[in-house]
């Protein structure tokens, strides 16, 4: 069982999991460290002068009782490495969190889990695909793990919920903090029905440096990592790197080589990640049986042939990224009312959508 000393150790500023692991191996328990003579701190590997000062300082000011009680008040549960129920998938990490904080519950060990990550400022295409893939995975009983960020993350969680499955978020801040704040509704759903997990003590605000660490947990908790959209040098690629280090399969959604948001994923494929070409094949690859796979790929083809001529012309001029009316006029050579009516027909048939007034994109 985790105790108030463990909570203290997890809360000392500047002391990450590696240093905690080193302290635990040197002292045996957090309690030992709390009462260790100041001079003896020097003998703990990895600790620098300022780390020691911070430990000494926090020992002086830390209120063991009150802080421990605050956990319950914040509805935050905690589990210590080695304790029964601690996610075994994390144990392979050399820097597995000493304490794992969570609201809600932890993902079931025996269920398959897949991480889905990608850009915050994603395209409609990415958002859509994330939703559909997550929905299909969830419907097939796969847990979807992500990071609750806007864009791909949020779409993945939402897709999983819509698909009737389970989804968990790992945060780069304390599990009692909803970040981003705009994700309040999603956060509440996750907390009440599934779980929000973090290695950071409650009350820890998000920090830029926390997110790569968080990403290693996302991939560690999963059996495979799907990268939906990523620019060059994006955070999602870090998750993919962790996955490769941890020996997990990486899947990437291919895109056109002119699309900035597909550069990262195409690059992953080039480096050996599996391309996601259809949801069905993805489910087969993951060795799960799809219940209903949604429509990715050309499943709409037969219906296209039945379209009226103008609608077909317009559909062919549309792309997955939004196009303005002026551009469509040039491409189709239709009159303004004819183009408008055709677009309307396509929207009605769920073959196109208007993302922003005057900007249309095709679905499927």
């Amino acid at each position, binding site marked *: 069982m985790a105790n108030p000393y463990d909570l203290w150790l997890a809360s000392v500023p500047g002391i990450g999991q590696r240093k905690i692991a080193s302290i635990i191996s040197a002292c045996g328990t957090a309690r030992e460290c709390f009462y260790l003579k100041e001079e003896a701190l020097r003998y703990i590997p990895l600790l620098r002068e300022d780390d020691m000062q911070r430990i000494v300082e926090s020992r002086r000011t830390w209120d063991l009782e009150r802080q421990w009680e605050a956990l319950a008040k914040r509805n935050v549960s905690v589990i210590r490495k080695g304790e029964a129920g601690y996610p075994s998938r994390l144990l392979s990490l050399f820097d597995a969190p000493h304490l794992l904080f969570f609201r809600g519950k932890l993902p079931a060990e025996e269920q398959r889990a897949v991480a889905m990550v990608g850009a915050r*400022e994603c*395209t409609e295409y990415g958002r859509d695909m994330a939703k559909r893939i997550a929905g299909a995975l969830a419907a097939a009983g796969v847990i979807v793990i992500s990071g609750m960020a806007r864009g791909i993350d949020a779409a993945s*969680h939402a897709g999983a919920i819509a698909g009737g499955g389970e989804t968990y978020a790992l945060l780069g801040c304390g599990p009692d903090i909803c970040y981003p704040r705009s994700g309040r509704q999603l956060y509440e759903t996750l907390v009440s029905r599934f779980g929000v997990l973090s290695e950071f003590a409650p009350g820890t605000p998000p920090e830029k440096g926390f997110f790569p660490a968080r990403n290693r947990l996302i991939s560690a908790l999963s059996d495979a990592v799907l990268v939906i959209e990523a620019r060059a040098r994006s955070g999602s690629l870090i998750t993919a790197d962790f996955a490769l280090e941890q020996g997990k399969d990486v899947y990437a959604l291919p895109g056109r080589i002119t699309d900035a948001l597909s550069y990262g994923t195409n690059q992953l494929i080039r480096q050996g990640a599996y391309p996601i070409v259809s949801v069905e094949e993805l489910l087969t690859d993951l060795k799960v049986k799809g219940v209903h796979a949604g429509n990715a790929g050309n499943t709409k083809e037969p219906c296209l042939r039945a379209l009226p001529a103008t609608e077909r012309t317009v559909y062919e001029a549309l792309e997955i990224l939004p196009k303005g*009316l002026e*551009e469509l006029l040039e491409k189709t050579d239709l009159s303004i009312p004819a183009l*408008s009516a055709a677009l309307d027909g396509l929207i*009605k048939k769920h073959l196109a959508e208007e*993302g922003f*007034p005057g*900007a249309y994109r095709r679905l499927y």
Partner: protein
Amino acid sequence: MVSEVQSAAIYGIDGLPIRVEADVSEGMPMFQMVGYLSSEVREARERVSTALRNSGFALPVKRITVNLYPADIRKSGTGFDLPVALAILSATGVIPPDAFWDTFVIGEVNLQGNVCPIPGVLPIVAKAAELQIKRILVPAQNRVEAELLGGIEVIPVESINGAVDYLTGDYEIPPREAQGEAKEASAPDFAEIKGQKLLKRACEIACAGMHNLLMIGPPGAGKSMAAKRLPSILPEMDRKEQMETSKIQSVAGLLTGATALSKRRPFRSPNHTATLQGMAGGGTIPRPGEISLAHNGVLFLDELTEFSPQVLEVLRQPMEDHEITIARANGSYRYPAKFMLVAAMNPCQCGYYPDRNKCRCTRRQLDRFLGKISEPVIDRMDLAVGIKAVAFEELSGESKGESSAAIRRRVEEAQSIQRARYRGEAFRFNSALPAGLIKQYVPLDAAARDYLEEVFFRRNLTARGYHKILKVARTIADLSGKDRIDETCLAEAVCYRGVEKRDWEPEERNRD
């Protein structure tokens, strides 16, 4: 002896007759001016006494009192210098009093005694003509402007001495320099814009129904190029409109050099750094602002999001009342301000939203950008049109589009249909159609009604958006001479439907 000279002041955009009286009497030598004067009128005392001395007239060592009448109107501007000087000369016997019968005098003088031009000559001349005054002495440099109207003898004067020579019968008016009916520089034409079919059509519809227009697109896509050409497809101004517009320009000091009243509607494009006063008008010497300079024409706000909310706030009242009231400590005055509002903006900071392939703006950046949009202004934009980014060379290439004259003919036709339809109503154009009368004036056929119902739900319209579509569809029908609104009109109107802030928030809109 008391002398009297008739002059005029500018009040709003009209001339207001003012009598200048001068009394020269025995007593302690002094020169005083009374009659509710602003500081620049009071300063006339120094200018006039020096100018008179430098013109060879010594001020008598007597008590000189100048009064401007009626006393309850605050007089401002520098146009009283010349009448004051001439009134004093008349009171001292230099000019016979009967020389001023049926005569108006206006003009500023400098210290050498030369007469300098003043703003607002046209409204004063118009007022003089209206009062059946026979002649008016104006600064020589304002001669062309003063002669625009006709019906009154214009006496251009270069100096105090020149005025004295004329009034004492010793002067011949120089013939007007041959000015060879200077043609107005040819207006920019829509034929010069290549492609941009949707944009051009939106401009045509906006002009036909006098709808305000919002252009959304990346910088350099030709937004201001199109805006500048709007006056060329609006009907020419009638005589009354020409007078109004010219008077405003005159008061603002912008009419110098015009050789005829212009029929071309004004186009004003104030910079986003425009001040409140620059926009609304006012100042110590009151001048009309940009919104009045755009009266009967087009007010174009480029980079709408860069304008300060306070500056945009001044548009609100004039958009309802077609005039702006400027309240001042000593009473208020009004400038006409009936304009078509055209604004341009980027969809986001970088200009490419919602194309996430190019736009890297974060949610927060978008929110910050949207925060800058003035809701009252966007609400009044019946039409919004998305503009495609094009290279400038592409935009102004060789291939000729339809000429402005051809478009204007359709606009004129559509406007006359509206005039006939709204005879007896308080409004003239579809844009002003009140929501309560839409059902009556925008009859839909059955297919159109069904279509609209679907569009309403499918495109997630608000009530305001719904009404905008109907008003625009009315104009589209008028442009093609249709009485009832059919599906085609509606389908086209949907393409220009106005935007609202929530359109930028797809994530919050039944997604995720």
